[in-house]
């Protein structure tokens, strides 16, 4: 039995987060208030490189979804589209009920404050301590000092790093850095957490710790979309899997594995 299973973090499905019986059509899902809706989304880079083709799917609130596929299959493009770093060539993307195509650029910061991001390379500010890195996400929102002082230790406690709050990133292990990055992503309690290979740079044991943390966050009601190459983790957790191949959705399974079975 693996560490993840021992902690019973992956085998139980909270009833509150029960998955829908039948997949919804994107338009119906948009109306029903799904977390993410992709409607025939296509992204073509110049010159005529199709990164994502006719991608349609719905992710409900509270779901934990793995996004798998080989390098260059379109995972990163999909995440960048979600964050409105890039615009789709055609199609419609709705995040938390907001149509990104109609969202003006000045409202993008607002969108990103509602999407926590966790990356393979952590993206921490090296000249700030763990708590300052977490506090930065609150500062950009104009949060008061009192509120920052209250929320930062709370979230650092949640990720088990209370004792490292004054350490700089280079004084932390890879796993600890990723936990700081998760704390930063979660400190605003965003309804959606997007993780791009969060365990890509970590050893298996540390990866399990990180997955446990993400699982706990998911149980609190946060939707998680995680792009990964971690075959073992995907196969063990048995969550929804959206598989991309050459920019197309090759598979969308409610309780899938890393490869088609």
């Amino acid at each position: 039995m693996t560490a993840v299973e021992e902690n019973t973090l992956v085998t139980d499905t909270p009833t509150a987060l029960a998955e829908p019986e039948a997949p919804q059509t994107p338009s119906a899902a948009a109306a029903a208030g799904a977390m993410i809706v992709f409607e025939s989304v296509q992204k073509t880079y110049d010159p005529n490189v199709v990164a994502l083709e006719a991608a349609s799917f719905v992710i409900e609130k509270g779901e934990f979804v793995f996004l798998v596929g080989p390098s260059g299959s379109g995972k990163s493009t999909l995440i960048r589209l979600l964050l409105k770093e890039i615009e789709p060539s055609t199609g419609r993307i709705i995040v938390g009920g907001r149509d990104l195509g109609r969202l003006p650029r000045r409202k993008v910061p607002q969108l990103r404050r509602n999407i926590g991001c966790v990356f393979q390379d952590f993206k921490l500010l090296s000249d700030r301590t763990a708590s300052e890195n977490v506090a930065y996400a609150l500062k950009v929102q104009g949060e008061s000092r009192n509120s920052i002082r209250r929320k930062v230790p709370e979230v650092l406690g949640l990720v088990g790093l209370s004792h490292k709050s004054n350490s700089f990133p280079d004084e932390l292990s890879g796993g600890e850095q990723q936990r700081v990055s998760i704390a930063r992503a979660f400190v605003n309690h965003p309804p959606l957490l997007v993780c791009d290979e969060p365990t890509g740079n970590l050893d298996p044991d540390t990866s399990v710790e990180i997955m446990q943390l993400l699982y706990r966050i998911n149980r609190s009601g946060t939707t998680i979309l995680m792009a990964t190459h971690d075959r073992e983790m995907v196969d063990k957790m048995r969550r929804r899997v959206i598989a991309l191949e050459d920019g197309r959705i090759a598979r969308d399974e409610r309780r899938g594995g890393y490869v088609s079975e």
Partner: protein
Amino acid sequence: MLGEAVRSIGANISTTVAATMTVLIGMFLLGLVIAFATYARSWSDDVKAGLVVKVFHDRDATPQQVNAVRVLIEKDRRVDKNRIEFVSAEEGLDQMRRERPDLFKTDLPYNPLGPAWTVYPTQAEYVDEIAAALGAGTKASPYPSGVHQVTYGAEKAKRILKVANIINAIFGIAVLVLLSAAAILIANTIRLSIFARRREIEVMKLVGATNWFVRGPFMLEGLICGLAGSLLAVILLFVSKEAALPSLLPRLTSDPDVQALGFGLNALILLGLGLLLGAAGSGLTLRRFLQV
């Protein structure tokens, strides 16, 4: 925002010093060129102001003929209407007596001079055109009746204008080149500093910072560098001026009309430019990195 800017200056002290030194060098050189350029321009303007057209009437010119020339002069748009001087024959003689007493050792039986006009152009460059309109230098149009000569120091005027134009052009180009060089150098230094921190900017944008939240501390940092650099340049210029002027002054013209731009104004220009270059340099350079 101030806290973020001060923090950033402290964390990137080497690039901050580099940017400040770039501003210092650029503004110091610019200050020097402005001082020399305005002095040279003032000198050439002073010399050019001495360029006039002189119209000499015949000794027996009638008042009607003199009046006709007055009308002709006043009608000319290139003439400074407030500076048309009429010199009567008697005044002309007195003037000559003062200037060339050697010619008046014996009494003259009669006044050999006629009345004359001294005409100032609105711009020194017009002297030859005004003189030509009055018939000077062209065979086709003789002098108006009652006028026996029109002079404007043709060769001298041309030489002065040529030298003045060259001086103006050289200093004008020098100011432009220095200003562009300072702007490019400062922008480049800031670009390097921002490039080194592009990751930081990316993170800021990803956690939902608005463009102004990111730009603010950088611009404030640029502003502080620009102010510090130009302030140091002003201090250096002041010290150089105090040290060099005593030995330079005796070599310069004593004409009180020839003046370089006042030090205070020059300093204000440099401080303003330093601030502008620092803030605009970082603000504009950031634009590229904000497209995240």
